[in-house]
């Protein structure tokens, strides 16, 4: 039960229920689709990037609480960041969710992203947390193909 509470923290449940930046964007400059063939979940990311800065970002799609909360928290975090900063955050997030369960989490550096530390206890769910991030990376790097978690 402890691990479950660690995974499904209130903040994740809240973002799942009322995700931020959820929906389509018509005048986006970048877009990408992510797909997890394991569960059939799909996510779409739309971004408006001007002068190397992510001015606006939205997401939509089908997904579990972890995937949805990840998309919600991620978009809130990336709004106003530069593309280089977003790529840096992607690396940090990847490192967090794939790091050893026993390793310490730098909550100061990771801020809100630290709530996803609980996913490390659940190897089958790491891909759910990473889907939105992989998709945004593809979007801002202008890759057209559907990104999969495989």
């Amino acid at each position, binding site marked *: 039960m402890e691990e479950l509470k660690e995974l499904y923290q209130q903040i994740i*449940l809240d973002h799942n229920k009322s995700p931020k930046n959820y929906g389509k964007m018509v005048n986006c400059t970048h877009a990408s689709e992510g797909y997890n063939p394991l569960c059939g979940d799909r996510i779409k990311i739309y971004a408006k990037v001007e002068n190397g800065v992510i001015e606006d970002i939205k997401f939509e799609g089908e997904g579990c*609480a972890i995937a949805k909360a990840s998309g919600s928290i991620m978009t809130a975090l990336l709004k106003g960041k530069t593309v280089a900063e977003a790529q840096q955050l992607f690396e940090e997030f990847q490192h967090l969710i794939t790091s050893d369960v026993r390793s310490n989490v730098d909550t100061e550096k990771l801020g809100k992203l630290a709530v996803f530390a609980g996913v490390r206890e659940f190897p089958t769910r790491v891909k759910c947390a990473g889907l939105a991030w992989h998709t945004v990376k593809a979007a801002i790097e202008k890759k057209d193909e559907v990104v999969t978690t495989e």
Partner: protein
Amino acid sequence: METTTLKKETVRLPESRQPGHFDVEKIRADFPILQRPVYGKPLAYLDNAATTQKPLAVIEAIRRYYNAENANIHRGVYHLSEVATRKYEGARKTVKNFLNAASEKEIVFTAGTTDSINLVAAAYGRKFIKAGDEIILSHMEHHSNIVPWQMLCEETGAKLRVIPINDRGELIFEAYEKLLNERTRLVSIVYVSNSLGTVNPVKEIIALAHQGNVPVLVDGAQAVAHLKVDVQDLDCDFFALSGHKIFGPTGVGVLYAKEKILESMNPYRGGGDMIRSVKFEKTVYAELPHRFEAGTPHIAGVIGLAKALEYVESVGFEAIGAYEKALLEYGQEALSALKKLKLIGTAREKAGVISFVIEGIHPHDIGTWVDRQGVAIRAGHHCTQPVMERYGVPSTCRASLAMYNCKEDFDTLITALHDIIKVFD
């Protein structure tokens, strides 16, 4: 008669484990894995449609083969090879009796249901199905009974026709009648749906197809652990099954085919053991069924499979059927009582499978949550994406039972579901 009554009375158990007259405790004791805890909780294994657990008798049979009997079959003149050959061919007889086939020549060992269907698509389909011909499937097929036919259609120019299903998850029989026509060359249909639990009226489906001389393949993967199968009574032309879905090992399965049809087919894979003589000018193929078993087969798997079938028969399908029916009803009723839960697949004839979704909670979150309470269920599309599309859901949760499950397994699941509904609310 008297002995039967007496036996039933003596095996009667406390109400909690006992939807019918069936000694589930005795069965459970035969499956070592059911004794192990998961996350410190008793294991409630409800993913039997994916694979079943193995009784000690099967594990021991495989162990004994590798420990004391291992040799290649059909060629050695020494003792071990004779033992292995006798066991392998003895297993064929066990399968023949289990399915009530007319002859052992009709039993081909394969790697599983998928392999069996691919064998038919390649060795029968490529020979007899041409451009413009039609193959009838249903909307509730597993990907393994869709993709091999699609591949065949791409190669030959034949077409797939799909029998629709109603909201309960039953085939629309009238639509099937209309789909059958003079271009139909094959009907390939699932007996029990792995994602909906629907038991299809395969006997009627076959009878109707035969009126137009159309052969029928029955995908029996999900049926064999729950229903008595008699291929002569069904009059099916092909029947495919997997060992691991009936308490046997993975990587082994069976293709039953009527002897006449098997005789008319092209060979499948070429190699050793499927030939009588090989010359560079010409090869003469072996007799049935060896013609379809190229290479060294999964001998240990075949021996394990036969042991599993013997085990199931020792329990008896009448007892299994009655017990599972009561357990399925218990599980369905208890699940339906949960608010926001919707059953996917409510056919009047069902076996083994309960699929469901809960409003506002993704199946994967449910799967992870109940896992930590020791409950193994499936969350996903169950290799039936067309079914998911039909119901407008990307995935479902699926609790699927076997004869060793008990009411407590469902009780644990339901308690866990209560918890997650509360937390996610």
